[in-house]
C-alpha cells in the first residue's frame, strides 16, 4: 500500500534521495508511506513503534478477558473490578504527559523503550497476586505502558511529512490499539492451552500472563537495537555533535499548555479513545454476564471490537488526509466532528439493545466510528504546534485516558448503574464532549464555521509566533520554518488552485 503526498511533487535534492530509500521533504521526513517496506529509517521506525505499542496494549488489557476466572480466584467484588479498570487507565494519564516532554528531550526511541521495560515487571508480577489490592496495583503499573502511544505519534510525526502524517499516525496507533482487541482472543486461548496441559483454573490464568510480559520485553529490545529517532540520526548523537540545539523545557511546556487547541483535542480524544479504553475493559464481562456466553465466545466478540482498529483507525487517519487534500484543515475538523458524534450515537444505542445478534452488529459499527474518530484526532494534532509537538501529543493522549478514568468512575464503578445503562450514558456524554471541536480555529486556515482570518495570517506567522525574536536570532526556529512551508498543503485544493 502506498500513500502519496504532495511533498513528493515539490522535488527533493538528489543528495537527499540518495541517502534515503523513500522520497523526503526539506526536513528529511518521508513524503510517502510504503506499508510493506522496512526501509531504514522511516518505515522501520513505523513497524517497530506500532509493534511495541501493540504489545503494551496487550499487557494492559490482558486481565479483562480472564476476569470471570480472576474474580473468583481473588474474591473480587464489582467495586474492586471497577477500581482496577480505572487504575489501569489512570497511571498512563501522568505518564503520557511526561512522555511528551521526554520525547522532546531524549527522543522517542529511548523514552518508549525505557517505559516498556520498566513496566514489564508489573505484568510478570500479576502471576503472584493474592488479593484485590494486588490486582489493582498490577493493573495500575502495567497501564503506564500505554504512554508509548505518545512516543509512537511523536516518532511518526518526526519521520513522515504533512500530507501523509495523518495516515502514518493513524495506522501506527490503530495497529497498536489492535492489542486491546487481540488480547481478548489471545488470553482465553493461552489460558485454555495451559489448562489442557494440566494446570487448575486458578493457576492457569497466572501462567498466561508471562506471554504478554515476554512480548513487551522483546519489543522494547527490538526498538533499542533497530530503531532511530530522526531521519538524520539519534537524539543522543545529534545533541552531542551540536546539530540539534536543546530547547528550553519550561518554554516548550508553557508554549504547549497555553495553546487552547491542545485542551480541546484532549477533551475530544477523551471521548473517542477514552470510550475505546472503557469498552476494552468492560465488554468481555458484559457479553459473558448479559448473554450467558462462555469465556471463549465472549472473548471473540469482545475482540472484534478492538480488532476493527486494524482498518478503522488507519481509515480515520487516511480519511483525514483525503479531506485535507480537497478542503484543507477545515475538512479535517468537519470529518472528525461528524464521525465522533455518530460514534456517540451508536454507543447510546448499544446499551438499549436486548438481542445478542443486534448487540454485536451495533457494536461493530460503533467500533469503526469511534476508532476512526481517534485517527481523525491525530490528523489535526500535528498541526497545532511545531515547537511543542510532544507536549500537545502528550496532553491529547493523556486526555484520552482521563476520559476513560472519568467514564469508568461515573458509570462503571460498583453496581450503581447496570452495564447497559452505563454504555448508553457514555454515548450521550461522548456526543456532548465532541461539541468543543467546533471551536478549534486556525487563523491561517479557519475553523469549522469560520474561514481563515481576514488579516491574512500565513503558516509561517502561526508557527514562528511560538519563538521569541531572541530565539530566532539563535536560529532555533529553523525546524518550525521548514514545517510551516510544508504545511501550506492544509489550505486545501480550492485555495491553491482556485480555477478548478
Amino acid at each position, binding site marked *: 500500500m502506498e500513500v502519496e503526498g504532495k511533498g513528493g511533487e515539490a522535488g527533493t535534492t538528489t543528495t537527499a534521495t540518495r541517502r534515503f530509500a523513500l522520497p523526503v521533504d526539506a526536513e528529511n521526513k518521508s513524503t510517502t508511506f510504503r506499508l510493506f517496506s522496512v526501509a531504514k529509517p522511516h518505515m522501520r521506525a513505523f513497524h517497530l513503534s506500532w509493534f511495541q505499542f501493540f504489545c503494551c496494549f496487550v499487557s494492559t488489557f490482558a486481565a479483562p478477558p480472564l476476569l470471570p476466572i480472576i474474580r473468583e480466584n481473588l474474591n473480587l467484588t464489582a467495586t474492586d473490578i471497577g477500581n482496577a479498570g480505572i487504575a489501569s487507565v489512570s497511571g498512563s494519564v501522568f505518564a503520557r504527559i511526561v512522555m511528551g516532554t521526554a520525547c522532546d528531550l531524549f527522543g522517542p526511541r529511548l523514552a518508549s523503550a525505557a517505559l516498556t521495560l520498566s513496566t514489564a515487571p508489573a505484568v510478570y508480577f500479576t*502471576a503472584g497476586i493474592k488479593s484485590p489490592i494486588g490486582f489493582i496495583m498490577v493493573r495500575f503499573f502495567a497501564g503506564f505502558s500505554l504512554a508509548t502511544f505518545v512516543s509512537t505519534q511523536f516518532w511518526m510525526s518526526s519521520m513522515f511529512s504533512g500530507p501523509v502524517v495523518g495516515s502514518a499516525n493513524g495506522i501506527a496507533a490503530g495497529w497498536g490499539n489492535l492489542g486491546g482487541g487481540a488480547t481478548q482472543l489471545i488470553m482465553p486461548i493461552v489460558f485454555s492451552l495451559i489448562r489442557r496441559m494440566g494446570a487448575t483454573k486458578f*493457576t492457569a490464568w497466572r501462567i498466561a500472563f508471562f506471554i504478554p510480559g515476554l512480548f513487551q520485553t522483546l519489543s*522494547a529490545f527490538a526498538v533499542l537495537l533497530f530503531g532511530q529517532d530522526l531521519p538524520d540520526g539519534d537524539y543522543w548523537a545529534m545533541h552531542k555533535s551540536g546539530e540539534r540545539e536543546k530547547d528550553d523545557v519550561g518554554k516548550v511546556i508553557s508554549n504547549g499548555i497555553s495553546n487552547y487547541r491542545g485542551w480541546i483535542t484532549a477533551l475530544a480524544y477523551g471521548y473517542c479513545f477514552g470510550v475505546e479504553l472503557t469498552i476494552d475493559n468492560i465488554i468481555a464481562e458484559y457479553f459473558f454476564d448479559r448473554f450467558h456466553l462462555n469465556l471463549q465466545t465472549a472473548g471473540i466478540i469482545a475482540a472484534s471490537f478492538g480488532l476493527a482498529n486494524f482498518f478503522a483507525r488507519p481509515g480515520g487517519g487516511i480519511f483525514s488526509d483525503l479531506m485535507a487534500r480537497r478542503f484543507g484543515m477545515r475538512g479535517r475538523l468537519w470529518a472528525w466532528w461528524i464521525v465522533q458524534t455518530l460514534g456517540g450515537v451508536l454507543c447510546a444505542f448499544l446499551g438499549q439493545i436486548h*438481542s445478542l445478534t443486534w448487540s454485536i452488529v451495533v457494536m461493530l459499527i460503533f467500533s469503526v466510528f469511534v476508532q476512526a474518530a481517534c485517527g481523525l484526532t491525530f490528523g489535526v494534532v500535528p498541526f497545532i504546534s511545531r515547537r511543542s509537538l510532544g507536549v500537545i501529543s502528550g496532553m491529547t493522549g493523556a486526555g484520552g485516558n482521563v476520559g476513560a478514568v472519568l467514564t469508568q468512575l461515573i458509570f462503571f464503578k460498583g453496581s450503581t448503574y447496570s452495564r447497559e445503562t452505563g454504555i448508553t450514558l457514555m454515548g450521550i456524554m461522548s456526543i456532548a464532549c465532541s461539541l468543543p471541536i467546533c471551536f478549534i480555529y486556525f487563523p491561517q486556515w479557519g475553523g469549522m464555521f469560520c474561514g481563515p482570518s481576514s488579516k491574512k495570517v500565513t503558516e509561517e506567522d502561526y508557527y514562528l509566533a511560538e519563538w521569541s525574536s531572541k530565539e530566532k536570532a539563535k536560529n532555533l526556529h529553523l525546524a518550525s520554518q521548514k514545517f510551516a*512551508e510544508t504545511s501550506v498543503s492544509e489550505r486545501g485544493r480550492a485555495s491553491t488552485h482556485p480555477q478548478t
Partner: protein
Amino acid sequence: MMAKDHTLYQDLTCTQFFHQKSIFLLPKFPNSTMTIHTLLFVSLLIFSFIESSRGGNKDRLFTELQNLLEVTAKPVQDVIVLEAGKDMVTIKWKLKSSGKVDADATFKTIQVKLCYAPISQVDRPWRKTHNELFKDKTCPHEIVSKPYDKTPQSLDWTVDLDIPTGTYFVRAYGIDGDGQEVAYGQSSDEGRTKNLFSVQAISGGHVSLDIASILFSVFSVVSLLVFFVKEKKKAKLEQRE
C-alpha cells in the same frame, strides 16, 4: 510551486476568499439532509426490532416450583471453613414426607447444585438471584446429577478445586423428562441465612511462579540499564570523532 501559491493567496481579497471558501464548503455535504433522514429511518427500524424481540417466550420462574425435596448438607469434619480440594460435605436428599402422594411422578433426574448465600452475592452482579430460572445465577456449580429412583440418597462430596471463597448452601432440583425444573429443595431456609458453610479457595499461586516473575523482571530492568550505558558510550565516541 510554493511561490505561485503565495501569489494566489495574496491576490484574493478578504471577502472574495471567504466567498470562495464558503461556496465549496456548502456543497461538500449536498446530501447531508438525506443522510440524516436515512440515519433516523434506520434507527427507527432498529428500535422497532428491539421492541418486537422482547415480547418473546414465557420464562419459567423459581417461585413456580414446589418445595418437595428435603436436603441437608453438613461438613464431614467440624471445621469453621472448608478448604477447597480437601474437605468434604455430606449431602443427603429425599422426597418430603409431608408432600402429596405421587408428587414425584414427573421426576426423572435430580440435579444437586452448590449455591451462593446472599452474603456472597453482595456487590457481585454475576452471582445475582433472578426469579427467571434461565437468568438465575445463584447456583452455578453442579455437584452431581443422578436419575431419580424414589429412594433417599446420600453423598460425601469433596469441595472442587475451582470453588471460589464464599458462603454456600446446597439446592437440589427435580427435573422432568423435558429437562425442565419442576420442584426443588435446599439445605437452608427460605431467606438462605441458616445452615450455611464457608469455603476457602485455593490460591492458585506457586513458589515457582513467583521466582519466574522475579527473574524476568530483573532481566528486563537490568537490560534497560545495559542499553543506556551502551548509548552513552556510543555518544561519547561520536563526540570524539
